[in-house]
């Protein structure tokens, strides 16, 4: 049999001292320990430690502390057999308190999640145009929308054929508020003013919340922008009315 090295038997020295090894391993360690003074010292140290622990173990007291233990336990057992259901449940709860706490936490989580989901799904939608949910909703661009980017700001436009413009009184009015001087505005200037109206200080404002005059002015600017942007690019023969303008701008939400 080969002479085992120290590293290979190091972890087996404890089980060897404890008599937990069998067969060839015992022989290998015996042979090693006979030749290796370091491992022999290790084995002796473990035995001395065990001896010290056993020596330090307290002796049985003269008057054993457990005298009367059996009668006390039997009495308590007998008393428990006669106790009320409330006491039984209460004692059971002591043993299962962590399980109860865990189950309660889980139930609370499920209930609160369900309630929150129901509120989000069926609850009233926020009416403020500058609320966080409105911002999120406004940022969803419909499939038929036309994206537009001006001066690093993004917006999208929606067009629809709504019939003769004569039926759109407000649009007719809007045409009138574009005076001659605005005919000379450049596209960038129109966009700047439009941005200042629909998203003052970075917060989008819905058309419905604008005053009548403000809204007409905004629609006029939008129409002017349409003229500048799209008349050159898309020749449209049909009458086109703007139904909706959504604006997406970089908006910072301050921390709480």
């Amino acid at each position, binding site marked *: 049999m080969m002479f085992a090295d120290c590293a290979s038997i190091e972890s087996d020295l404890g089980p060897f001292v404890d008599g937990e090894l069998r067969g060839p391993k015992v022989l290998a360690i015996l042979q090693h320990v006979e030749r290796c003074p370091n491992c022999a010292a290790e*084995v002796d140290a473990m035995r001395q430690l065990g001896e010290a622990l056993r020596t330090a173990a*307290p002796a049985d007291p003269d008057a054993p502390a457990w005298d009367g233990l059996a009668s006390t336990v039997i009495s308590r057992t007998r008393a428990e057999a006669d106790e009320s259901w409330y006491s039984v449940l209460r004692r059971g709860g002591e043993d299962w308190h962590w399980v109860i706490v865990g189950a309660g936490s889980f139930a609370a989580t499920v209930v609160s999640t369900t309630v929150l989901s129901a509120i989000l799904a069926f609850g009233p939608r926020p009416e403020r145009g500058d609320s966080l949910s409105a911002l999120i909703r406004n940022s969803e661009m419909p499939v038929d929308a036309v994206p537009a980017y001006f001066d690093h700001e993004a917006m999208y436009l929606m067009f629809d054929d709504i019939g003769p413009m004569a039926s759109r009184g407000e649009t007719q009015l809007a045409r009138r508020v574009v005076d001659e001087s605005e005919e000379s505005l450049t596209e960038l200037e129109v966009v700047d003013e439009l941005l200042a109206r629909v998203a003052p200080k970075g917060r989008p404002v819905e058309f419905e919340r604008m005053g009548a005059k403000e809204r007409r002015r905004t629609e006029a600017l939008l129409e002017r922008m349409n003229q500048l942007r799209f008349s050159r690019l898309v020749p449209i023969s049909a009458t086109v009315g703007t139904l909706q303008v959504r604006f997406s701008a970089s908006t910072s939400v301050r921390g709480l």
Partner: protein
Amino acid sequence: MAESPLVKPFRALTWSDTSSADWALVQQCAAGDEVACTRLVTDNQRMVYQLGLQLLGDPQEALDLSQEVFLRVFRTLHQFRGQSTLRTWIYRIVVNQASNRQRWWRRRRRSLQVAIDDYVTGHGELAEWRSFASPDRLLQQRETAGRVWSALDDLPFDQRTAIVLREIHGLSYEEIADSLGVAVGTIKSRLARARTTLRAVLV
């Protein structure tokens, strides 16, 4: 080496040695036989009290623990299926109860330092105290015992339990693993760490 390495300090009883007697005792206790219950307590009370004392280091705590352990034994006796020995099953209850009490105890910032005189007051006299008359020897034993139990108190509870069950109660690795509900390999590593720590403190 003067001593054979194959000889254990203590030999633990195995289930095969006592299974039928223990099983009969369990059946009688479960049927409400108070004589059998008394016998179950008297057969195991010393082991339970001593282990409680060694794990908690306080005689009153150990006595309270003993009562709780036997009450729990009788409450849960119907769950005992004989998959381990009765003794190992009781050991497991002792360790679990001691672990609960030990956490409670430590939360209240009990001092873990055991003075020599406190040691004798708390633990009683040493096993060999009355056997040797030499005062020097007795004093040395007391000092050593104080250091040993102070070092034991400083060990993590899992390691302390493993080393006490192995070295003082003489349980095999398998019995210790069964009592603590862990793998034998875990016991092996806990014992190795406990021995390393204790030797570093005591040498």
